[in-house]
């Protein structure tokens, strides 16, 4: 299974994503520069965290116009797996691949800590190695991670089971309904503020993020067999 990790000017969790794929899955992974227009070689596209374009104006706002984002849209429409983590999630909402928006944290500070999440939907391609209701420890590190969508959209997300993770017994940023991660209707695009790639070894403070990577590999293998 071949992974692409996108690199925008200002991305800084790209290397971490590469290391996580290597350490957890041992699958091939390339970093792909934001000017690349073709991603058809890849089975999973990771939009990593960081501060693309300095997060100027709004986080993710400038990155969404990079040429590579057209290719991401195309591959997503084909059903390829796309994961946006942190800044990647912001880029995916800005580009309309996922609904809603990420606002400034309600306390207005950047917040970095290991945060408990509850797995709301364990039936996605990204979460099959978790169980619904699992509480997992995953680091967060963001200043603009307060998820917002209007009532109608939230209702739809809930009805379609698109909320994948919620913050558990803590509220690090004022997200509506403590939403920490969502997927699109088709279930092949995931966006989340917490960083699973930072939770892949016990010595990093948690290894609970590994199952997200193993889930994707299994889903892909399942598709290959089908």
């Amino acid at each position, binding site marked *: 299974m071949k992974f692409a990790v996108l690199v925008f*000017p200002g991305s800084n969790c790209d290397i971490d994503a590469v290391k996580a794929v290597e350490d957890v899955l041992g699958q091939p992974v390339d970093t792909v520069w934001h000017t690349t227009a073709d991603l058809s070689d890849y089975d999973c596209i990771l939009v990593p965290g960081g501060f693309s374009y300095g997060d100027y104006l709004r986080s993710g706002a400038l990155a969404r116009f990079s040429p590579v984002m057209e290719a991401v849209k195309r591959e997503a429409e084909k059903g390829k797996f796309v994961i946006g983590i942190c800044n990647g999630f912001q880029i995916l909402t800005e580009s309309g691949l996922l609904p809603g928006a990420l606002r400034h944290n309600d306390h207005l*500070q*950047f917040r*970095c800590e290991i945060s408990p999440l509850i797995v709301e939907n364990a039936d996605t391609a990204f979460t099959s190695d978790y169980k619904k209701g699992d509480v997992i420890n995953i680091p967060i590190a963001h200043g603009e991670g307060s998820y917002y969508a209007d009532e109608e959209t939230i209702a739809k997300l809930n009805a379609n089971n698109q909320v994948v993770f919620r913050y558990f017994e803590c509220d690090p940023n004022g997200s509506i309904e403590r939403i920490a991660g969502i997927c699109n209707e088709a279930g092949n695009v995931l966006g989340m503020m917490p960083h699973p790639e*930072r939770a892949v070894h016990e*010595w*990093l*403070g948690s290894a609970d993020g590994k199952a997200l990577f193993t889930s994707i590999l299994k889903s892909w293998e399942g598709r290959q067999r089908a």
Partner: protein
Amino acid sequence: MRNEPTPQQIAEEKIYRTFGLNDEEYTKIVSLMGRQPNYVETGIYSVMWSEHCSYKSSRPVLKKFPTQAPHVLQGPGENAGIIDIGDNLAVSFKIESHNHPSAIEPYQGAATGVGGIIRDVFTMGARPIALLNSLRFGEIEGPDNAHNRYLFNNVVAGIAGYGNCIGIPTVGGEVVFDDRYKYNPLVNAMCVGLLTHDEIATGTASGVGNPVLAVGARTGRDGIHGATFASTEDPHSKERSAVQVGDPFMEKLLLEACLELIASGAVVGIQDMGAAGLTSSSAEMASRAGSGLELDMLKVPRREEGMTPYELMLSESQERMLVVMEMGKEHIAEEIFQKWNLEATVIGRVTDDGMLRLKEGDEVVAEMIVTTLVDDAPVYHRPSARPSYLDQTLEFDPASITAPADLNATLHTLLRTPTIASKEYVYQQYDSMVRTSTAVRPGSDAAVVTIRGTRKALAMCTDGNGRYVYLNPRRGGQHAIAEAARNVVCSGGKPLAVTDCLNYSSPEKPEIFYQFEESCAGMSEACVVLATPVISGNVSLYNQSNDLDIYPTPIIGMVGLVEDVDHITTQTFKSAGNHVLLVGPSDTAGISGSEYLRVVHGLTAGDAPALDLHVEKAVQTAVLTAIQSGYVRAAHDLAEGGLAVAVAESAIGGKLGAQLELNTNQRLDEVLFGEAGSRILVEVAPEALAAVEAIFAKEGVSSTVLGTLGGDALEIRVNGETVISEKVAELESTWRGAIPCLMN
């Protein structure tokens, strides 16, 4: 013609004084040049000869630091020092102050401080892997201290804003609150980078004809005369143009582009344009190579039209570097920088005539001998006199103090003190995990960052106690080094080398110069005993306002090597049933100079706490050996607040109680809250106790079993009487809640 004063006007109207040059210095410039300097030249001499760039007051003292050891690859004098850690790997690090800008624009002042220190490290060819900082503010309690809270809040946000954006984890630091710093907060930032031996780059401009490039951001009118500004007394009343806005995004691109460029092998020399911008970078690069430079001001990329050579040379716009390339390889730089959407522009050439020559097209606008800018800068041997306050502070008699009756309450009081309380409020604003190499995050004695592909890791911390130095400059200096090294040892690292940031008031006052000289001598002594040479550093003087001098505050950045990731140790208690030992002398702690005396009795008095460097060395060796042998489950040094606070911190972190028992002739407040060097708390499993005690005995270090871990309360009995008994959860809520409660 430009509306600039003529050389004659500068001389006759003594305009040079407004640049911070005194009459004597001006006369010396005239005689070195053999003529009167014009406006640009006067500006250039004034910044090169400012305290900030020339170290004219501090140089004679700094020369005495021990700087050599077989593992030192680059000592002081370059942008950052470098040490060898084996396997062809090397570590570059440095600390720097941004005190004055932070006092007037805390967010940007702190942010650009971080930006500057990162550039110092990546110019050496190193990939920055960690940031640390050390901060001092006035008290933040109560309605009168809103400004201190504002400074604290915005400095922290500025450090976070820059470090988080550029993607380098901020892994450690310290914050101290004391009204001595209310007009002059201290903001010291440290960066640590990793490189291989063959990647080392330096700031030299050699090779006649080689092109000189300005790369990165364009030059604007910001920050003109910042270096001079940093060397004057009162930041508030001085020229305010010296504050710049940082652009961490630009710096991230610059960092990647520069490392790629250095890897190309075509770079002759590279240096960041920090204080005094193009002036100091060009003069210093030429000076190191013994060469000259010719620069065309018209070619310098600028943000604004109509900028004069004076403005271009003195601007301190951020995120810029000066690069000398091999002749004919300019295109390599241009291509790499284009990929990163940055500019790289040839602005001049290296010459062999030893001149710094500035032109506008064909017209020479300034011409100075490089050595006169750098080597002939004045050196002042400032008079030094033992401060008279020492007579009073040393008279303090601990017997004049009555120990409080309710020691539980006293422990809470100390845990609530912002200097001791949890700094989570601060470090949760820092991304401490990006790069996924941080094995020990903020909240333990020293942070630990792993090195991918090896079993090695680096332990690092910043430390300094201005009150100790104030009360006993020499011993205070020793403490600074000893405590920093002790913190590294507690995390499982062998201390390797030091970077220092020397923050003091005006060196022109003999009593301050005494503090400076003596504390540096103390640091040197400790560096020699602990085998940790000084490889880089920075000096910040004139930290005084409204007749209030800061405490003499040398801040130490220490880096150590963890040989194997299995040795990584934290300060939190791990398992019930394990023993807690106090390693080091058990009867030296006193209340003199302690945080307890300050907080509970409102006194800063007495001598600095006890410290014997040879005992210190033995304790550190013993504990490191025990850690490396795999016997130590937790280690925590005893610092502010003494034994009781250290035990409480380890208990809180581990959410685990402890039952301890001491027998002593000392007073209760001395035993519980007294301070002294060379003391480390360790947790050891019962089956390892004998082996650990054997190691300590072999090193000639005393150790005492204090008791056992377990339950949910901290209980301390002294001579059979229970003096502390409190639920760990209660201690935790006091300690964790203190700063948020003051800030929100």
